[in-house]
């Protein structure tokens, strides 16, 4: 099918494009961006005047709950919600059940995603078998089946010697190591940021040091082994600064932040609102501002959703006993656009954080509008408001602290491989 997306403001940060252009799509690929192509027989034309035309978003972390937790959500339900929210590629962490520690599980997920026919799904392979933090997985096999990186999800790798060896092994095959840096002893039984609010609420806190101490250790090992590493879901300003300094020192490190960490703080827990029970926890105002600055500067080159859909019961408990996680696919784009609206960074840079930024970290061909690339393109009305509600959220998980918020930014069209998603 030949598609023409007309007169939209095309923003393709990887190619430094931010202007009104036409986008031509043919046979599932981007034929051209810019001037008209002579003799282009359009089958379908979309008038994108007043709208944005962007590469499909790339989400570095979205839990699809399949295999193993299908009562919460499925690959079919979540990839559909993602596609409608403009996310055309997403990455699934290894903590499914069974864990993605064998090529078979990775293949299962890929096949189910292909069958659903919605967003593309990439997997992070498990660094250790069953995420036990001790036994190395078959990393080469996982890479071969298509895993875009390896990591241990939330499960700690307590022994630094073991972590060092995992990094060395991964580096052998040029595999990126995804790290969730949190010291389990300092985390203890904490469930929110340790500070004035946790003191007031009497909830056990997770100190800033739980993240910074682990980041310091991990940076030292990265320097030693030379592995390419990505820090997942940074929550403290201090850790973002430490990793930025390591970047300036030439270490091959990147980091991402959850969209909600850029808007919510520990104060939003309010009177024990379990919708704000997340991991890593919402931190202080100062952390939030420092993270925003790191995103603006590009030290944090990716914003992800960290989508974790839950069934309603999972959040219906006193705070610490409630499940942690936010259903976040559909707020990723509006919150990112809002950053630009609030003048924290340019619109083009904001888009980069959810397109080419994460794509580069994953090493995948996505997040750009290069000619001859697969046509994963979205059209967005940046001025249209929508209210976050049980009806507007397409994901099976309705667990979000943004419930009731009026957000700007509606995806009007999503194309994956040049085909429309509805």
């Amino acid at each position, binding site marked *: 099918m030949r598609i023409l997306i007309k007169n939209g403001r095309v923003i393709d940060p990887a190619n430094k494009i931010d202007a009104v252009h036409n986008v031509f799509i043919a046979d599932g690929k981007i034929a051209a961006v810019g001037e008209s192509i002579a003799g282009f027989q359009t089958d379908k034309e979309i008038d994108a005047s007043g709208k944005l035309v962007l590469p499909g978003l790339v989400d570095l972390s979205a839990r699809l709950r399949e295999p193993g937790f299908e009562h919460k959500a499925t690959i079919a339900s979540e990839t559909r919600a993602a596609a409608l929210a403009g996310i055309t590629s997403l990455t699934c962490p290894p903590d499914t059940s069974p864990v993605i520690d064998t090529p078979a599980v990775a293949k299962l997920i890929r096949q189910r995603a292909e069958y659903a026919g919605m967003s593309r799904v990439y997997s992070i392979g498990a660094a250790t078998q069953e995420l036990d933090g001790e036994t190395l997985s078959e990393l080469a096999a996982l890479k071969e089946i298509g895993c875009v990186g390896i990591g241990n999800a939330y499960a700690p790798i307590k022994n630094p010697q073991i972590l060092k060896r995992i990094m060395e092994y991964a580096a052998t095959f040029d595999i990126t190591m995804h790290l969730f840096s949190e010291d389990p002893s300092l985390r203890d039984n904490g469930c929110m940021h340790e500070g004035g609010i946790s003191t007031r609420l*009497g909830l056990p806190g997770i100190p800033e040091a739980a993240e910074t101490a682990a980041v310091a250790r991990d940076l030292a090992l990265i320097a030693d082994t030379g592995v390419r590493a990505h820090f997942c879901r940074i929550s403290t300003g201090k850790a973002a600064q430490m990793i930025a300094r390591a970047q300036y020192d030439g270490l091959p490190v990147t980091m991402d932040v959850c969209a909600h960490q850029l808007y919510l703080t520990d104060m939003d827990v309010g009177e*024990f609102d379990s919708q704000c029970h997340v991991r890593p926890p919402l931190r202080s105002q100062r952390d939030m501002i420092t993270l925003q600055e790191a995103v603006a500067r590009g030290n944090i080159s990716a914003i992800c959703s960290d989508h974790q859909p839950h069934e309603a019961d999972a959040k219906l408990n*006193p705070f610490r006993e409630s499940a942690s996680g936010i259903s976040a696919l559909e707020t990723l784009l509006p919150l990112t656009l809002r950053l630009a609206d609030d003048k924290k960074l340019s619109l083009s840079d904001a888009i980069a954080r959810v397109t080419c930024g994460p794509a580069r970290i994953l090493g995948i061909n996505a997040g750009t509008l290069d000619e001859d690339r697969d046509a994963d393109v979205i059209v967005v009305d940046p001025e249209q408001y929508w209210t976050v509600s049980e009806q507007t959220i397409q994901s099976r998980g309705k667990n979000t602290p943004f419930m009731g918020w009026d957000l700007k930014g509606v995806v009007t069209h999503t194309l994956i491989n040049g085909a429309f998603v509805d």
Partner: protein
Amino acid sequence: MIRRNIQLDKNGRLRHFLTIEGLKRQVLIDILDTAESLSGVTDQSVKKVPLLRGKTIVNLFFEASTRTRTTFELAAKRLSADVLNLNISASATKKGETLLDTLANLQAMHCDMFVVRHAESGAAHFIAKHVAPHISVVNAGDGRHAHPTQAMLDMFTIRRIKGDFYPLKVAIVGDILHSRVARSQIHALTTLGVTEVRVIGPKTLLPKDVESLGVHVYHDLEKGLDDVDVVIMLRLQNERMQGAMLPSEHEYFQLYGLTEAKLEAAKPDAIVMHPGPINRGVEIESSVADGPRSVILQQVTHGIAVRMAVMSTCLGTTAQMEAQEGGAA
């Protein structure tokens, strides 16, 4: 978005009593005044008033407690209410029933009030958010968060002996980190407008940013007790010797145990309080606990009148009482 205080009904009257935090000074004063008028009941030979006759109060204790439960039970019975004691730790939750299902089952039995004690901070708020509109919830202690009736009986005791809150310097000594009583006391004291609230303890037993609650921090007991009018001692639990919070009860007593000698630093007419149960020789010396400045046993007596006041306020019958007595103070 302005969120209404969950503790108040739509007319602004107290419906749930979950935490001191967020309540206006007048609400606290009203409870103290009601407790004052109810305290005469315990002295009568027929120790009952019919204020809550026909009402059913459920003691929903997910955490075992004999002392608090018995005072709530006594208070309810003195108000002529029917009382149901549920020791949940032994029953359904062990079989995997969710908290909400336990609640739903109880509500189906048409109760009017739940007095809740739970190991999780925020449990009382959670229950209050999910009960039917006609049911009131009183927090008998949730995790480390709050124990508001204890704080109120402490305030009642202070007011009875010292009169005015304003000029007072109050020190709370011990494990503030793990104490729901201390948190509620701090909110009550700052709301009632005392001159100064001090917390005294080693850093390992003080929560992060505790100053943000409006207190001054001391690590030296004598310095902290200097010129103080009220000394509140907290119980030291055995578990604190694990995880490197404290080396030994011996060192704790040396540094933070209240002895006659240390008490000299406070004002000559300073009173000594303790929410109980006391650990003699750990946080407090026997001669102080049994001495003339100790009001520990009076606190226990006051606990009944205060809980009667809280329960009758939440079930909305103080207005009826005032009408019955023809407005007597």
